[in-house]
């Protein structure tokens, strides 16, 4: 498709609320100027600098859902690859059970990630090392009964001389157990816990060996981007992973970037556990002329606004309703494009906005009202002791912006919910 597109049929498909842009996509627009100058390039620099020392960079990244985080992470990956880094992108959503994820699962995922990524590049790791990890898994982690089961399934596929597939399968099998919540899962985790230091040491041996091999192929270092962890919902789960077991996550002998839930970034003093500041990607400040212009430009890269909107001012109505969330903006355009006409008109904008307002209405609860009122008045995220702000942030009922310093506001759609607005404006 040639962007910007010149008809509504294509415009609908140029605006996806569900797909991050791949790096190099012509629709990409760098928004750092309206994100308080924040850019993933900073992270790339940080990783590259650290990699010139003996240290490993552990970086936490967060931001509101739908603010363009995944698109930016994909850009970071490309940036690092262009600087000859070997980047392993792990989407835990596909491989782990986020409901009850633990640090053991993350360690296993990293081990599996490196084994598979190297196998894909046909880079052979030292056989002794792999056997070593295999042995640890076989003897210490997997029960006997389960071992025979796993062995049997390897037997079918094993081919002479390709040990790596055997191991890959073995670890995949374990990951399957961990993923599916089988009764073995707890057992596997307990056993890893029991031999934790040994397991991490073996994993790090593996990473060292991988790095050595990769350097001979011209790669500077390995970087893991672990995406999807921001979707953990229960605070007990993410606190256990990122606070209770920060030490284990820090011990991994590679640069690792983890996405974290926005609520965690707000409620914990993560600086005590991770050396680097959390990288927070703010919402685009859609309230300022500059922000409005950037968002209009972002849409103009996708579709010819002057041609496809009956009046370009209509787009500004959608931007004003987006709260600076790229995802909400793209969705508003999709809904507005559901017309038989060739241009988006007033009525379509009205309908799109009323849809978004009704959808946000589903999220607001009676008991949120007082707190929303307080936040609206204070124009910042109030960190109350009941942590009510967690829900509001993670559902985008409250958005945080940065304009030199952070400040917050209610999502503009909330101002259009009539029952809520009546309460928000009522005197105390």
């Amino acid at each position, binding site marked *: 498709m040639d962007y910007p597109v010149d008809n509504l049929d294509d415009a609908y498909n140029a605006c996806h609320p*569900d797909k991050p842009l791949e790096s190099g996509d012509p629709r990409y627009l760098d928004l750092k100027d309206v994100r308080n100058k924040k850019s993933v390039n900073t992270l790339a620099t940080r990783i590259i600098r650290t990699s010139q020392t003996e240290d490993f960079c552990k970086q936490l990244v967060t931001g509101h859902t739908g603010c363009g985080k995944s698109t930016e992470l994909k850009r970071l990956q490309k940036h690092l690859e262009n600087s000859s880094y070997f980047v392993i992108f792990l989407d835990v959503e596909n491989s782990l059970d986020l409901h009850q994820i633990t640090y053991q699962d993350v360690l296993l995922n990293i081990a599996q990630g490196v084994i598979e990524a190297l196998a894909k590049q046909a880079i052979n790791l030292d056989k002794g090392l792999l056997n070593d990890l295999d042995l640890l898994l076989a003897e210490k982690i997997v029960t006997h009964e389960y071992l025979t089961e796993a062995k049997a399934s390897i037997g079918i596929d094993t081919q002479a001389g390709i040990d790596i597939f055997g191991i890959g399968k073995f670890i995949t099998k374990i990951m399957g157990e961990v993923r599916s919540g089988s009764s073995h899962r707890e057992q596997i985790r307990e056993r890893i816990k029991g031999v934790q230091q040994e397991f991490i040491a073996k994993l790090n041996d593996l990473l060292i060996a991988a790095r050595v091999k990769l350097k001979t192929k011209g790669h500077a270092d390995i970087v893991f981007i672990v995406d999807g962890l921001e979707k953990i919902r229960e605070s007990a789960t993410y606190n256990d992973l990122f606070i209770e077991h920060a030490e284990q996550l820090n011990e991994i002998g590679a640069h690792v970037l983890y996405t974290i839930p926005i609520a965690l970034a707000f409620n914990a003093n993560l600086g005590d556990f991770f050396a680097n500041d959390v990288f927070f990607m703010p919402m685009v400040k859609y309230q300022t002329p500059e922000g409005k212009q950037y968002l209009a430009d972002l849409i103009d890269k996708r579709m010819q606004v002057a041609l496809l909107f009956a009046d370009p001012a209509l787009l500004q109505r959608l931007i004003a309703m987006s709260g600076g969330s790229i995802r909400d903006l793209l*969705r508003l355009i999709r809904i507005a494009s*559901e017309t038989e006409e060739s241009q988006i008109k007033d009525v379509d904008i009205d309908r799109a906005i009323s849809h978004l307002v009704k959808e946000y209405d589903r999220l607001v609860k009676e008991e949120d009202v007082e707190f929303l009122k307080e936040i609206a008045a204070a124009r910042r995220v109030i960190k109350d002791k009941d942590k009510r702000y967690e829900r509001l942030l993670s559902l985008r009922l409250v958005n945080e912006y940065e304009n030199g310093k952070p400040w917050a506001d209610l999502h503009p759609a909330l101002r259009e919910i009539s029952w809520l607005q009546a309460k928000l404006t009522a005197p105390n």
Partner: protein
Amino acid sequence: MTSTLSDIFTQHPELKHLRRALQLCKGFGLYFVSCNTVPLRNELVAALKANLATPIIELPLTPENDIFIDAQMAALLAAASADAIVFIYDLEKLYHLKDRYVIQELNWRREFYGRANHPVVFWMPDFLLTEIFNEAPDFADWRSGLYEFTLSQPEQLSLMQSTWESVGENFVGQLSLTEKERWIVNLENLLAELAGQEASKTKGDLLIRLGMLYKSLGKHDQALVCYQQSLQIQQRIGDKQGESATLNNISVIYHIKGDYGIVLFYLEQSLQICQDIGNKQGEGAILNNLSQIYHAQGDYDTALRYLKQSLQIRQDIGDKQGEGATLNNLSQIYKAKGDYGIALRYLEQSLLISQDIGDKQGEGSAFNNLSQIYHAQGDYDTALRYLEQSLQIWQDIGDKEGEGATLNNISQIYHAKGDYDTALRYLEQSLQIQQNIGDTAGECTTLFNIGLIHWQNDEQQQALSTSLKAYRMAKHIGLAQVLQSLDELAKDLGHEGLAWWETLNPAEPAE
């Protein structure tokens, strides 16, 4: 509802937009449709099929093929044309079975749908959409659009009428698991349609039935919420009959939770109302339920007195289902007293009635209890046969409480035969169920049994901790049967009796 196609597009203007969106969407797109009733859904789907050039693949979800939704979808798509649109129905059926997990699963496996490269439309009742927005926000956030469709007022009323007429009294015991789930969905939908309207007898009645359905599936907290809501309505509009039924139903939940004080509190109120308004059927039921508290506390004479009063009333008014239940309960008193002959006779009468009137729950219960008589007499094979029949029924009708109890009883057969490993396996299954549904009395019994096996295997540490847990629980809820067994166990172990457990348990508060 026989509107023509052009009518339906006029009647539901959003349908035009949904059709447009599906025409436009290339590759993946996630769409939600809010539609509370199946007839309306069928109408809308028919209109879309007639007005879209692309094929529509329909995936109705059922609890029977209870696997990841994405696996089912992948199988269907394998044979589909590239531009096919997927309609997914009945997510609410899985939701009622697996609670929140089914929603969380959507949140964490959304990548799958993204890779599917087809538009995916989820059709569901409005309440479930709100759940998804709140519990699976990442998934909901991928939506391209949400389209709401509601019935007009007269359509709502006629639908409610026809639904209502097909729901009889005491219907829960006759339903299979699938039927129960369908009913839960129907009733939830009706209640959603009624949400804006004021309190009415109909609404209270719907809530009682919904509560009974939840209770029969072991979802006691949900049941309690329904009952509390219906109680409020009934008290507001002065529906005495309904109020007494609800009070009784609430007491049943607390009975399962083992809170006998609260049970009495509710039952006495309920009994008073029944006697005031001359509701014989209710009175028979409450007398029967009262007996069960005294039974649990070991006061067999009082229990027997209530049961005989209940039986009299139920026979007088021809309440067959009630008669079957009371006969069953009578048998249990005689069994407890060691009078197996009389117990057997009552049970056989009870079984006959249950089978006559198709009361599955009663039948399962009779089979289970019959097995206990044969077990007590040492005829393990007959006992096991009855238990297996009982288990089958519980599983068919989704009665978790029954399943937990029968699994426990099966374990006892293996225990008696000296096969401790198998016994333990059944006990663990039973425990799992009882903990899930909050069946405290059942859990307590099962814990005692598990402890016993550990004692027999000479696993002192586990034995002690499990037995202590059972002791604390039994003491807390006053479960006589288990306390008595614990007394005997302590003596067998060479201690002075029940007091010994207390010495092991000085500072720790009961649960």
